[in-house]
């Protein structure tokens, strides 16, 4: 894996008791604007999934880069507040001297810790990037399936937003891909744990992994995981190329494929741990919860399938 991934792994592993200041100090906000690629961004997201990090690391990098490209200043922890596809986008209306921003975003990772939120919105016929202070919007904690990250609902109704007209296409695609990358990392971690288990756990006088039924299931899972990983890397390369159609196809394929395959890998990995894997104390369910959450956010597999059927 890349040097970026290795560095991210060390940093995220050390960050169990993280604070917004700690993320800021690490310079995560400068990842994309400081010479990093979208491939690097996805590598960070993948590692975050692998180590089940609570930190919205890649989100911070993406949101900061969007604000920068729009020429809007941000401070402190900044996270992306992107609507799910199919939900309406927030709406910005020019209102005398200011801008009024209304709408809601169903799931924002780390909104409660942020100083600023970066929101894609529609303003008349324009796409805009809006920056709002977290204290100016309603943030409601959600007790979601995933136990390793904190998600909030964000309701916007403020006249304090700052907006700039700038294309948000690539950022929206990248945001979809972050969930795919996270899912690949998390599914890979629980799959490796399952492999270790079937290698050591003995039944009928031999390791579980010596039975063909178990071997073939593991082979299928590993191939699917490798393909999902490759699809995510290809999505990173497409995002870096900037080609709009290539991005859309590569990202939707990575998102749809990862959503289905990684959820299956994580579920099978839990199963391969036997009843131990079904206990609260075992980590398998924490990975499964994270992967399934990733599969549903950033566009469901169903939504991406629909899109892939009609993309050029």
């Amino acid at each position, binding site marked *: 894996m890349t040097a970026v991934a290795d560095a991210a792994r060390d940093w995220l592993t050390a960050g169990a008791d993280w604070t917004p200041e700690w993320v800021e100090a690490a310079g995560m906000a400068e990842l994309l604007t400081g010479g990093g690629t979208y491939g690097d961004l996805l590598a960070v997201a993948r590692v975050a999934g692998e180590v089940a990090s609570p930190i919205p690391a890649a989100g911070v990098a993406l949101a900061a880069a969007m604000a920068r490209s729009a020429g809007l200043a941000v401070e402190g922890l900044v996270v992306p507040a992107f609507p799910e596809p199919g939900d309406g986008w927030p709406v910005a209306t020019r209102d005398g001297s200011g801008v009024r921003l209304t709408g809601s975003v169903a799931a924002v990772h780390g909104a409660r810790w942020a100083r600023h939120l970066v929101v894609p919105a529609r303003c008349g016929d324009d796409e805009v990037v809006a920056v709002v202070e977290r204290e100016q919007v309603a943030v409601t904690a959600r007790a979601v399936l995933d136990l390793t990250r904190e998600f909030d609902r964000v309701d916007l109704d403020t006249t304090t937003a700052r907006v700039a007209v700038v294309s948000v296409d690539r950022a929206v695609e990248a945001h979809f891909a972050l969930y795919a990358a996270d899912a690949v990392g998390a599914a890979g971690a629980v799959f490796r744990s399952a*492999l270790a288990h*079937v*290698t050591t756990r003995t039944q009928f006088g*031999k*390791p579980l*992994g*010596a039975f*063909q039924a*178990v*071997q*073939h299931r*593991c*082979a*299928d899972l*590993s*191939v*699917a995981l*490798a*393909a*999902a990983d*490759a*699809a995510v*890397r*290809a999505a990173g390369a497409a995002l870096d190329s900037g080609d709009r159609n290539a991005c859309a*196809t*590569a990202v*939707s*394929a*990575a998102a*749809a*494929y990862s959503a*289905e*395959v990684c959820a299956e890998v994580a579920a099978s990995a839990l199963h391969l741990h036997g009843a131990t894997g079904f206990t609260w104390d075992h980590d398998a369910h924490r990975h499964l919860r994270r992967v399934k959450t990733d599969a549903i956010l950033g566009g469901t*597999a*169903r939504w*991406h*399938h*629909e*899109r*892939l*059927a*009609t993309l050029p």
Partner: protein
Amino acid sequence: MTFRAEVRSFVAGHAPAWRPGARGPADEREAAAWREWTAALFARGYVGADWPVDHGGTPGHQPERDAVVAQELAAAQAPRPGGAGIVAAGALLEFGTEAQCRRYLPAIRSGADLWCVLFSEPEAGSDLAALRTSAVPDGAGYRVTGHKVWTTNGQWADRGLLLARTGSGRHDGLSAFVVDLRAPGVRAVALRTVTGEPDFAEVHLDGAPAEPLGGVGRGWAVATAVLVRERALFAAAPVLRVLWERLRARVGDDPGTHGELGRLRAEVVALGALEEEPTADPAAVKLRAGELRVRLAACALDLAGPAGLDDEELVVGYLDSHAYTLGGGTSEILRTVIARRGLGLPG
């Protein structure tokens, strides 16, 4: 013009047109065209560029061009140059003597010799090392006797790369040979596949002359190298992309099919991404590609409904797709290889 565009245009203009899904020629005229096609690909350096320059390889060969050619040939579903000629050439270059390379490689390049691979037997399919065809020394060379089967293009090939038994050891009792299929003692009988096409053959050997390749007792190493080379030689994803695009064009814009079409596209794109990774396990690509091909072909027939039942392209595509989970290692063998070699699970 980019190299890819150049190859694509050449393939479109020169590849012989065979019946849908066919792996071999239907008659002597098609066989002659196949030889010309093979010679043209070698002459332009599209295949064989990686060979040593002494044997016709391209000076300053760029390996990334091989991948482009493999992708374009696959996407056009063009006939394999020289049948198993490229695979055999790989074995000759890796295991053969200089004299053998001089004897056989020029005729592969010119299309004069079409090759086939004589490995499988009626009692030795997935368990290849169980093969029983025997080779016994006969003065200068060897004589081989046995029964080979599922030999793609066995009835058209001029030469065969044969695996036969020279001793009792399961693996070290196997040796590789070059067999002249036009010699006395060789009888090839065409077999029809599920599509009705005579695409493979059984080959009866009755004291046929054979020349050892790679030393007696090294047959397993030759066979393994051939199978690995075969998997690396032909790109899987490009043809799946073409099949998916054809499926979409056929279905038109029917929203009821979007879920299924979109899922298949995601899988094709992911497989393509995997195949293009330099570290990808060829067994993993082959496993996934074979199963995906079966599903694509079945989906095309399903979505066409009753009207598709007499559509030759759909019917042949559906039936023929089942070759891809069998040939070159069955899906079950591949899963076992991946689990044991790739994941380190106990054998």
